[in-house]
């Protein structure tokens, strides 16, 4: 039987996400998918779900959700305290939700991106083989108050009191590891030095497409032809501002690709709040 979750409060920018839309880049379709894929995978692993089950992703300000049928959920990602009908629980474990329960996430003290996983995943519409929200592909691009998302009932819950220690999964290091990008060697020694020895600051303009970094670099590189880019590509824009492309980024770009973040570092930078400092560190394959 199907049931629904109702959005009581929408939060800042709340979406449905899975691993993303793979194989459609040739049509100019962004990959999308969970911003921090490590916490996303954990949300499904805790529930013993298929790894691509759709979750609710929230950014900085969590939504308030009402579940209209029995199920089991998991809370992962940004560090907060889950409350079900005002009873306090822990993150990173199975939480049994009774019909009519309201989920609130309080005291978001660390990180930026949180996930609400559910047994069997949320039954959102599938477009181009994925449930990840994206403007002009899915019919909604974010969840709003009063929206409802269906899910399959699950009542045969057996209590599990074990939870995963979040410190195991929480890497709060300032270091963001990256490979040399295709245009890295066009930089002068001084530019390379500046790139790898500056404390950059996460901009307030960060979103699902990109994280701009504050502090300018000297940029005298020649313009280049539009070329493929991926999440994690660090572009050096004409003004000298660095932009780290994230999950909803375009498939091609015209700025020099000076670095490419490791998969792990894309997840780490996804959790950085505006004004947090980061340092870029070169690694090799």
């Amino acid at each position, binding site marked *: 039987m199907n049931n629904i979750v109702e959005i009581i409060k929408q939060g800042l920018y709340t979406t449905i996400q899975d691993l993303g839309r*793979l*194989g*459609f*880049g*040739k*049509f*100019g*379709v*962004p990959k999308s998918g969970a911003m921090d894929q490590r916490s996303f995978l954990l949300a499904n692993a805790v529930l013993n779900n298929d790894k691509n089950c759709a979750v609710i992703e929230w950014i900085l300000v969590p939504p308030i959700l009402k579940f209209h049928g029995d199920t089991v959920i998991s809370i992962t990602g940004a560090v907060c305290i889950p409350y079900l009908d005002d009873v306090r629980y822990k993150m990173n474990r199975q939480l049994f939700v009774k019909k009519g329960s309201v989920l609130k996430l309080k005291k978001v003290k660390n990180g930026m991106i949180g996930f609400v996983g559910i047994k069997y995943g949320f039954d959102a519409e599938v*477009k*181009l083989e994925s449930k990840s929200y994206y*403007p*002009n*592909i*899915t019919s909604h691009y974010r969840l709003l108050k009063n929206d409802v998302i269906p899910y399959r009932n699950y009542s045969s819950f057996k209590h599990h009191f074990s939870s995963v220690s979040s410190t195991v999964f929480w890497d709060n290091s300032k270091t963001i590891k990256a*490979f040399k990008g*295709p245009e890295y060697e066009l930089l002068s020694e001084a530019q390379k030095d500046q790139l790898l020895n500056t404390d950059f600051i996460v901009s307030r303009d960060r979103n699902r497409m990109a994280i701009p970094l504050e502090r300018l670099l000297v940029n005298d590189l020649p313009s*280049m*032809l*539009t*070329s*493929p880019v*991926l999440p*994690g590509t660090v572009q050096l824009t004409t003004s000298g501002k660095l932009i780290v492309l994230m999950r909803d980024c*375009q*498939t*091609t770009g015209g700025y020099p690709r000076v670095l*490419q973040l*490791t*998969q792990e570092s894309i997840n780490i930078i996804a959790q950085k709040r505006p004004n947090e400092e980061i340092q870029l560190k070169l690694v090799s*394959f």
Partner: protein
Amino acid sequence: MKKNKFEFQYEQYTENAILIKGSSEIDEILLDSLLFYKNEIENYYNKVIVEVISSYNWLLVCYVDVIEDFYSEVLMLKSLYSDDFLKKSSKKRLWKIPVCYSSQLAPELESFAGKKSMTIKELITLHTAPLYTVFFIGFLPGFLYLGGLDKKLVTSRKASPSAKLEKGSVAIGGNQTGIYPCDSPGGWHVIGKTPLDFFNPNISNPCFVTPGDKIQFISIKENEYNDISFLISSGIFTVESIFL
């Protein structure tokens, strides 16, 4: 060993992606070779790769799993390339794209013609004459990168982008012309509007145009624009095309 027409460079881009680079210029023969190569890679690897994304002078091969041995992968990729594309008959299509060049639908049309010191009729003639080459799709879902804009129409982008160019806007920016497949901010000058959909997320082949195809703009009147819009919304319009 036989010598191929193009030399490619291979570099690892991420844990599970390899970039293949041709020369650094826009070239139609390079495009043909890249698209042929892309096809060979896709056929050979099938389920091992997610996809191959092409642009003017690059292929990006995205693998499902982490690449264990970059050098053996490159050897394999190199073995898949040949110059056979020069002999093979292509299945390229020429698509006829109806565009209404009117001030009602493209408010910047007159100011653009004025800026270029030409009449609107001259502008339309110059814009509808070429067979534009589709190099790749990027920037927005269904946005075609087209080569072949007449030099007389080259115009630098606006200093400050417009907040919204409407879906279907046909525009010029720098030495490029293009069609906005959805509403988007943009710094290009809008000179016309097409009623066609260039991106449909409800079907598995969301864009009817393929890189390597050609397109030509056909000037239509406002009443024709309205008729075609109606046929599209009723689901009974077919875009005219011929095999080249």
